[in-house]
């Protein structure tokens, strides 16, 4: 791996890490949602530092270039994150629906007495 690639990858991973930790610290991102992002940043750093692991992985999945391996894993991680959000949104949709129905039912007694 070229030294520029290495420096850029480490720099990008560290920036992502710092941003996530800051968001968690300021309460803008819940720990619950941060772990997948932190894991992504962590794996990126490991792969950049431990180049041999990247080569082994490239060989394992049958890719030609190590950069392809990085892209494949990046896409897989993004898909996991998107799926995680879709699951969360489904749960939240049900919760919002149930809450609104509950409020409507509680409010109905008051509304009809006026």
């Amino acid at each position: 791996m070229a030294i520029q690639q290495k420096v850029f990858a480490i720099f990008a991973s560290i920036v992502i890490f710092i941003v996530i930790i800051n968001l968690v610290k300021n309460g803008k991102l819940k720990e619950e949602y941060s772990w997948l992002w932190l894991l992504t940043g962590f794996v990126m750093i490991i792969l950049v530092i431990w180049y041999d692991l990247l080569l082994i992985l490239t060989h394992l999945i049958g890719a030609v270039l190590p950069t392809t391996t990085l892209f494949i894993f990046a896409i897989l991680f993004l898909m996991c994150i998107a799926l995680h959000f879709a699951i969360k949104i489904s749960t939240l949709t049900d919760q919002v629906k149930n809450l609104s129905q509950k409020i409507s039912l509680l409010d109905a007694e008051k509304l009809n007495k006026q």
Partner: protein
Amino acid sequence: MAKDKCIIIPAYNEEKNIVSVIENIREYSDVDIVVIDDGSKDSTSAMARKAGAFIIRHPFNMGYGVALQTGYKYAVEKNYDILLQIDGDGQHSAKFIPELFSQVESADCDVAIGSRFLSESQYRAGFLKSIGIKLFRKIILLITGEKITDPTSGYKCLNRSVFEFFTNDTFPCDYPDANVIIMLHRAGFKIREIPVEMTSNPDGRSMHRGIFTISYYLFKMFLSIFVTLIRRN
């Protein structure tokens, strides 16, 4: 002992029709009428209240299925034994209410569905909608072995065990149609259809309009039926 009954009317922006719908119902039935105002932007709630209905108002618009489910939850909370649902746009003729009630009351079935295709009705479905209805009839027949002529009818009477079953989160709130009939069949409920009259929507509005909306509806309905089939009861 007489059973406690109620009629629920999901309504969204129906200030023009809601009063006549309620008055029409009163001619044939004196049971409690509950209007679920699904976050209307007009005075649907006020008009319905003036006409003597009990109002449940959603804080924002959540769709026809959610409004229906709110009605089911209300009926469970208030311990009603039988519930009848009728549309708020005046499409369903109220004179069939006693017949629908008596079908469920006599314990012949758990669900009585008012079908516009069992009688000489003025109802004329659009070309695409009639193809859709025929398609879902076939699918229902194939899966359940039951002949349901009007799978998209929103004119239904349910007993307590059915509307209690529908308060569950698995109730398909986006488009509760043919998928609901399959769900009911799989849960072991007995369904019966009776002939009713329906008119095309007086305002010319319909829930399923436009080629894209219909395609999306068909796709969602197939998906929902598939999910109903793979889910364990």
